[in-house]
């Protein structure tokens, strides 16, 4: 299990190194994920242990956002002035995006094009 966790962390590190040496504004972790995806295709799939460690982490993804999310505690002043505008903009734009994206993505189901 530790070896698999180490493997994931190595991909995380490589991802960081790649984006910072290329100077592209892209998250190192997402780059590491794409690299791991390439590795899985080369290898023909994840080992059972890797899949196990991966799903333990992914199952607790919500916990891992708590440290970054709690930063909102430091922005009282911003919300005192722009709070209503920010809240309206975030709620409307996000829900409209889900609505439009979901409606279009779901259309494939009815097109019949997805039948393999």
């Amino acid at each position, binding site marked *: 299990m530790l070896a698999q966790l180490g493997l994931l962390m190595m991909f995380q590190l490589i991802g960081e190194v790649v984006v910072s040496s290329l100077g592209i*504004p892209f998250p190192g972790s997402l780059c590491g994920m794409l690299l791991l995806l390439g590795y899985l295709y080369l290898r023909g799939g994840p080992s059972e242990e890797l899949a196990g460690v991966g799903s333990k982490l992914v199952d607790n993804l919500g916990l891992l956002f708590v440290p970054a999310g709690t930063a909102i505690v430091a922005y009282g002043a911003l919300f005192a002035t722009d709070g209503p505008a920010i809240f309206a903009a975030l709620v409307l734009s996000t829900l409209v*995006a889900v609505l439009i*994206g979901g409606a279009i993505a779901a259309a494939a189901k009815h097109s019949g*094009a997805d039948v393999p």
Partner: protein
Amino acid sequence: MIDPGKLSHLQGALVWLPCTIVLYAGSSALHRRLDKAPIANPTLLSIAALVLILAGCGIPYETYFESVAVLHYLLGTAVVALAVPLYRNANRLQGRCISMALALVAGSLASIFVGLVVATLGHASASTVLSIAPKSATAAVSMEISRLIGGTPAVTATLTIMTGIIGAVGGPYVLNALRIHAPEARGFAMGVASHGIATARAFTESEVAGSFAGLGMVLNAIVTALIVPPTVRLLGLA
């Protein structure tokens, strides 16, 4: 009775790491008890509780963050691990590529334009409007775009997290109202609009939904980086 004055002298992982994990475990248990109701989102509940505790005890965010930095590091590791479910569900993309590509571009544009328009109509300051524009992309990308266009990256980081929570909480209700039940479409739409936090929510619905949310998150990081800078320049905002 714990004296908050004494609590503020307590620092380090000894206090805040277990606090965070216990709060999240409790929120998670409540979420499950409530049949995974989106409104009882465990990330939202934990953040709300921590904000009250930190503000109540007068603990600076930096002190808190330092002690839970290991969780933030593991967020990167978990994002790398998303490759596994993505690999397992990649075959489901077959025949869906075109509709997913359209959903990606339309969802991304909708998020950017509605955000800009509503923030402007609401008389938000110019810097706030610019900080809102890239908020549907995952935090590292949205912060970088914000810096490029003259927003405030730290503000964008917080708005990005709020966007994630709004999508994770409100998204499922919107999709239910539209009777969209296909996990591929549900996950993808939430990932595009609300990155990783909605991806976490999608994984509580199913692995297929979670995988498509992860895919939507990656693709929207790229699309947002391509669209936002020219858009704000075109609109004369930056």
